[in-house]
């Protein structure tokens, strides 16, 4: 069995080493990964599970032994770094779905300032969402000239998935101006919404 020794390595190194090794072995072959910190164990496990592989973990002293059967593939385009979650960053299983470029009903200028404050607060809070989805006129907040672009980029770097409705970008003719996140479709959006413990519609 091929073994990856990621002892003493911090995220994202164990993820990168695991990805490389998985892509080197053949289907159904097993891989052993040695890791000595809890966070990396969680990250590598999540990384493999999200790519359709089951992980068996054993702890021997201070070292975790992860055994995985290659039953899936990790596309070359997958960024292993995206699966890093820092110790102090709690990602909760909730989704924020932004359907408009304003928050709440009422005066337009108030709604506009409230949504800015809402998005700018997300990077500051402890319990960050797993995913942020932009739909309909909400997509204007994810464009290059968005007043909350920096906050969204900060969240994206921390591994929070930002999905922007492709149909909506198309409708408003703003595809070229997308500043953050990835263009997504209703299948993926609905999947994310239905898998979340909670969904916030600001």
């Amino acid at each position, binding site marked *: 069995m091929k073994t990856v020794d990621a002892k003493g390595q911090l995220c994202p190194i164990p993820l990168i080493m695991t990805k490389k090794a998985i892509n080197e072995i053949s289907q159904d072959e097993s891989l052993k990964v040695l890791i000595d910190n809890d966070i990396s164990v969680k990250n590598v496990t999540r990384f493999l599970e999200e790519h359709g592989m089951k992980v068996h973990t054993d702890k021997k002293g201070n070292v975790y032994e992860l055994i995985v059967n290659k039953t899936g593939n990790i596309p070359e385009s997958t960024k292993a770094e995206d699966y890093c979650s820092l110790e102090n960053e709690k990602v909760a299983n909730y989704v924020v779905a932004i359907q408009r470029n304003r928050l709440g009903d009422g005066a337009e*200028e*108030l709604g506009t*300032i409230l949504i*800015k*404050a809402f998005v*700018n*607060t997300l990077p*500051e809070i402890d319990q960050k969402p797993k995913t942020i989805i932009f739909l309909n006129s909400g997509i204007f907040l994810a464009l290059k000239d968005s*007043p*909350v672009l*920096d*906050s969204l980029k900060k969240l994206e770097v921390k591994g929070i998935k930002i999905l922007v409705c492709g149909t909506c970008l198309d409708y408003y003719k703003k595809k070229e101006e997308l500043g953050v996140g990835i263009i997504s479709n209703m299948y993926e959006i609905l999947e994310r919404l239905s898998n979340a413990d909670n969904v916030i519609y600001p």
Partner: protein
Amino acid sequence: MLYILIFESIHKVLKAEQILAKNNIKFDIIPTPKDFSSDCGMSVRIDTLITDIELVKTLLLKNELNFQIHKKEI
């Protein structure tokens, strides 16, 4: 260095936002941090790495907008 500018009312924040935007100044709208005020208010956040705080002060005062200013270490 970050500066937090706190205004008397949301109307003043909206006015400040308009003035700063018109002058192409980079800033963020954030909820007023709890350590500065217990009001549920909005503030303007200025990052001195990208924005000249003195220019912001001058512009706002010229437009008769009063504010409290707080420093926040990053």
